[in-house]
Every structure is written in structure tokens, then in C-alpha cells.
């Protein structure tokens, strides 16, 4: 039989038992909808996580520390530390050397220092962190109050919300106000002339003040990266932080170890941003070979991917249960149809229908139910996703958090949903179709 005639007859047969076939199709649709909704949740969460993480720069960064570091990543076990006694200092020379490596976008130090903030005549203790210009795109400042630094050298400050609340519970009223930053500036000391017992170098710490204008309040902790010494709660542009020459925690360590020179301060750690996550591994190895400690989140990223693959697989298995029930529905519908249409099958065979024609007819009917169920299911799954996205947005809004899409239906999922529904329906139609094809026409014509 020609395919057009075959589909004509199939549609006619489906229309004849409209209620039963619609319910079967609805069963498939519910199965596909649950599949699409579950997988779109998996995809949405994965998108959300990877977008946030890649925007944060964590996965394309290498965190570099001197091998003499006492703690933190790169410090390594005691045996390594002993072996690294002659390791290179992480100073400006090292910074420019790393900057010149291929596939490096930027290198910046993690500058954090203790300070006292004077606001409205009252003192507040906090940690100040320098932020590179590139951190604006990290996503950490999405939905912040106020705005990001107007320039890399602006005397401006962004406050972390917990610290801002200490200054004024009405955090929005802080924006535009000024504060005074009191910090210890490192000033190099000359070696005592003629005193050979004294090693050269050393520095003094002198109290300094800096006037800053508050331009924003942020809810996240943008400066809580790796290799640092706690979160910065008052954020200033990194170039400004560097000009302050504030005494760092590692300064004291370097003096005690004798690795410090008074005029060339070293960095506690450097963050090296690569062009992309694929360059991170090679970069990490190169930096390690240069005599520094290096650490990246690449392994954590791989772990995250594995987690999402397993997560998606579990969602797929659970949602497939609904589709499995729908499959049984198709088999039941078609087997019932064979019983009902036994005589009709006999007539068709008497008129010259081959076994293959009968098989194809039932196959097409199953496929059509799958096609409609697939379309309906994808639409339904999309609607469920939209509804849950809306619900999530409302909930997050009530919590004063920026809205996120936890459901995402990519094109491949739409095609997969429809294709899978057709495939499952055809598989479900296999047994009924071959049973109908095998029907003995003499017996079928005798059937009342």
C-alpha cells in the first residue's frame, strides 16, 4: 500500500476510537512531559552552575603561591616544603614572567589586608580586598545595590552587605557617603651600616588613611577566592590597593624567613587567568616548573561534570518510568484494537492486503500516537518548566535574590522528546503489529 493511503487509513482508524486513542496519546504526552521537565531541570541546573562558575573565573584560573607558603593551597605536605626551601619568591619579576606566558589573559595579586574603617565617626574593623577590573563580569555583582567601580583608579569602595549592615542597617543609604580607611603602610628600612650581624632589609608599618566614596553594596562575597586569607568585606579597585602598599600577612613571614627584601615586597598569591579552561592544565604545569606552587579548580570542574552526567542519568531513568507506563498503554490500546478489528483485518487480507500492509498500518497508528504524544508532551514539559521557573522567580524575589532559570529546554531536548516518543511508540507497536499481521484471515472472517 502507498504511504499516503496507509496514513489515510491509520488516521481514519485513530479517529474511529477517538477517546481511547486520545487517552493513550495523553499517556505518552505525560510520559514525555515528565521526561522533558526532568531533563530540562538537569540541563537548566547544569547551565546555571556552569554559567555562574565560568563567569566567576574559577575554572579558567590558576592560583599561584610561593612554594614557601606556610599554609593554603600550594603549601604541600612537609616533605615538599623542605625540598622547596630554595623556591623563588612570588614578586613583581615573577608576576611579569607569568604574564608573558602564552594563553595568559591577566595576572593579578590577591591583596587583602586588615584595616579600620571610620564611618560616621565610629571605628569598624574589617579586611580590605583589591578587585581586578575583570571581576565585574564574574556575575558576583549582578543585582548589587549601586554600581561597580567607575574606573580602575577610582577612590571608591564597594561594601559586602554584612559589613554594610554594621555601618548602617539601611544599606542603600550608604551609597554616595564617604568613609576613611585606616591601614598600615609598609615602608622599607635601610640596613644598619657597619652592623654585619644584622641582615639587611626589614620594614616598618606606618599608619595611613585613605578617603573613599561608597558606590555599591554587594550581597555575594566576590573576594572569597582561593589562596587568600579570608574574605574581603570592603572592596576597592586592585590598582588602588596596590598603590597603598599595605602590609600583607606574608610580609612578616618573609622577614622571618629572610626571603624578603625591603624594597621588593612579595605576593601571598597571584591569580592567573587563562584564555579558557582548556589551557589551565598546561599553564598549571608550566608555573609549577617555574618553581611556584600552583592550583586550579579543573579537577573540581571535571567532578562537577561527572555529577551532572549522573544526575541527568538518574532524572532520565526516573522520568522514563512514566514513559514506560505510557508504552504499556500503547501496547494495550493496539492489542485491544486488534481484538476489535479482527474482522476488519480479515477483510483487508481477503481483499489482498499482505501481512506487511497490516503490520505497517498498526505501526503507523502507533507512530502517529507517538508523534502527537511527543509534540504534546514537549509542550507540556515546557509549560511545566516555565511554571516552575516563574514559581522560583517569585520565591527568589521574595527572598530579595536575583531570579534564575532552573529549567532550560534546549532544541536538542525538543527533538529528542519527540523522537523518543515516536521510537518508544513504534517499539510498543512491534508486538501488536506483528500479531495483527499473523492473524489467519479465515479465522478472522469467521469472528463475530
Amino acid at each position, binding site marked *: 500500500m502507498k504511504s499516503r*493511503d496507509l496514513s489515510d487509513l491509520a488516521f481514519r482508524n485513530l479517529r*474511529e476510537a477517538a477517546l481511547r486513542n486520545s487517552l493513550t496519546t495523553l499517556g505518552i504526552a505525560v510520559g514525555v512531559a515528565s521526561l522533558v521537565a526532568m531533563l530540562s531541570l538537569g540541563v537548566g541546573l547544569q547551565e546555571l552552575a556552569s554559567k555562574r562558575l565560568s563567569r566567576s573565573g574559577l575554572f579558567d584560573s590558576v592560583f599561584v603561591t610561593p612554594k614557601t607558603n606556610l599554609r593554603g593551597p600550594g603549601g604541600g605536605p612537609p616533605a615538599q616544603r623542605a625540598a622547596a626551601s630554595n623556591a623563588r619568591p612570588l614578586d613583581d619579576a615573577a608576576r611579569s614572567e607569568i604574564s608573558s606566558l602564552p594563553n595568559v589573559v591577566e595576572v593579578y595579586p590577591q591583596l587583602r589586608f586588615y584595616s579600620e574603617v571610620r564611618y560616621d565617626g565610629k571605628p569598624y574593623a574589617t579586611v580590605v580586598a583589591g578587585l581586578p577590573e575583570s571581576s565585574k563580569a564574574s556575575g558576583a555583582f549582578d543585582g548589587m545595590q549601586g554600581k561597580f567601580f567607575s574606573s580602575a583608579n577610582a577612590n571608591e569602595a564597594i561594601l559586602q552587605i554584612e559589613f554594610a549592615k554594621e555601618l548602617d542597617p539601611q544599606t542603600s543609604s550608604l551609597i554616595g557617603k564617604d568613609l576613611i580607611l585606616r591601614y598600615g603602610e609598609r615602608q622599607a628600612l635601610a640596613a644598619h651600616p657597619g652592623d654585619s650581624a644584622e641582615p639587611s632589609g626589614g620594614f616598618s608599618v606606618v599608619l595611613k588613611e585613605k578617603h573613599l566614596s561608597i558606590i555599591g553594596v554587594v550581597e555575594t562575597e566576590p573576594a572569597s577566592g582561593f589562596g587568600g586569607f579570608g574574605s574581603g568585606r570592603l572592596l576597592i579597585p586592585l590598582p588602588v590597593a596596590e598603590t597603598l602598599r599595605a602590609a600583607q600577612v606574608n610580609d612578616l613571614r618573609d622577614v622571618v624567613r629572610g626571603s624578603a627584601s625591603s624594597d621588593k615586597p612579595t605576593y601571598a598569591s597571584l591569580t592567573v587567568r587563562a584564555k579558557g579552561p582548556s589551557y589551565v592544565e598546561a599553564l598549571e604545569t608550566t608555573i609549577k616548573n617555574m618553581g611556584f606552587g600552583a592550583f586550579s579548580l579543573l579537577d573540581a570542574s571535571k567532578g562537577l561534570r561527572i555529577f551532572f552526567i549522573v544526575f541527568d542519568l538518574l532524572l532520565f531513568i526516573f522520568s522514563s518510568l512514566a514513559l514506560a507506563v505510557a508504552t504499556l498503554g500503547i501496547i494495550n490500546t493496539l492489542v485491544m484494537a486488534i481484538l476489535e478489528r479482527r474482522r476488519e483485518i480479515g*477483510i483487508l487480507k481477503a*481483499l489482498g492486503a499482505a*501481512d506487511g500492509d497490516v503490520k505497517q498500518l498498526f505501526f503507523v497508528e502507533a507512530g502517529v500516537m507517538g508523534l502527537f504524544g511527543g509534540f504534546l508532551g514537549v509542550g507540556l514539559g515546557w509549560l511545566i518548566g516555565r511554571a516552575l521557573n516563574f514559581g522560583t522567580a517569585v520565591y527568589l524575589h521574595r527572598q530579595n535574590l536575583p531570579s534564575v532559570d532552573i529549567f532550560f529546554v534546549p532544541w536538542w531536548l525538543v527533538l529528542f522528546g519527540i523522537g523518543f516518543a515516536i521510537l518508544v511508540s513504534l517499539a510498543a507497536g512491534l508486538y501488536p503489529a506483528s500479531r495483527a499481521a499473523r492473524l489467519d484471515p479465515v479465522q478472522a*472472517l469467521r469472528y463475530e
Partner: protein
Amino acid sequence: MPTDQPNGQPAIHLDHVARHYTLGESTIRAVDDVSLTVPAGEFLALLGSSGSGKSTLLNLIAGLDRPTGGAVIVNNQDLSKMSSLELARYRRQTVGMVFQSFNLLPRMTLEENVELPLRLAEVDRGDRAARVHEALERVSLAKRAGHRPSELSGGEQQRAAIARALVNRPKILLADEPTGNLDSATGESILTLLREIQKNLGMTIVMVTHERPLAERFADRLAVMGDGKLLSNGAAR
């Protein structure tokens, strides 16, 4: 419609045909060693009581069933050696069937019912309407083309079934108790129609019936079956 088969040549030849069924440990001999020849253009009536094996024999000639012994030769082709696909083609092209209970599809109109064999034979859509009209015209049902079987009388339904059997222009028409569900007057009109078709189209007709008076009036020859055997080969009238 001209026939390409000269009268006198055997259209159907049954050579020691047997159809045995096994039921548990016993064997039912529905058709037992039947040999019969039907010349082209003949109207043969196959008579017999219920269970005599006449319908089973008709199903064997129709290619709906296969013999367990002997050979069913139609137009020089041995049906027992055909594959199921070849048998389906044979049913589409060589024979047309008419049943006691009409066997029209209730949800289709007459037109659609008559078109069904054309769809199975993959006849072009453009040719179908004319052929359906021609077949319905032949049985005087052209005006009822859009009706469903339930809207027609028994006689009209049987005429529609005859139109469906003729639409693919087969050489042989097989009728299984075509008057069984009809009153005597309608039955007579159906047999008159079959006779006209046989004469006008030169068709070979094998009709199973248990109504001897009607068979004697319309058929060229009567063959009688009993207990699966051919009791009388009959003689041409």
C-alpha cells in the same frame, strides 16, 4: 470489460486437494481428496450441507488458506507453492470475493469500501474515482456512493460487496453464500446480477450455497460436497 481468457480453458484446477485439521489427537478432514476443474467463464455452484467443506474449499481457491495435500492451480499457477506475499497479490489481482455477511467496513462509505482494493493494489488516485464509479454503476448503486453500509438494505450491501469484488477487474469471482442473509426475492436479484456479470465480463464464478433451487436456476454446473469429499462433479447444463 473484455476477458483475455478463452472459454473452455481451465481457470481453476483442483488436484487431489486436502485440507486436514488436527484437533487434539483427532484429525478433521475438512476437504478430503477433491479433484475438480472449472473452465474459464463457467458459473459453478458448490452445494452441500453445513460442515461439508464447501467454504473451506472456496477459501483454498481464494488463497486465504493453504491445502495440506494436493494442488490448487488457478490460471496455471499452483497456489500451494506461492509465498504469502504472492498469495496477497493473487487475491488482489486474480480473484474477487463476496461473503454471506457482506463484510463491508461499517465506518466507510460505499465509495470508500469499493476503493479499498484499489488502494491495496496501489492504483493511482486519479484512476480510482472512475473505477469506483464504474463498479458502483454496474451494480446500480452509483447514487448511494456516499452512504454508509448501515444506511443500506441487505441486498444493496451485497451489491456493494460485489462492486468491491469487481473493482480490481479480477478474472474469477468467488462467492460464499451470497444469498444466505437475504430474503428469497433479494437473493434472486443478487444471483441475476452475478449471472449478468458472468455473461458480460466473461468471468468465472464459483459460488458456495446450500440453496439448490437457486443454484439450479442460475449456475452452469452444480458440484455437491459432503464430509469433505466431492460427491458429485455435476454436469454442465
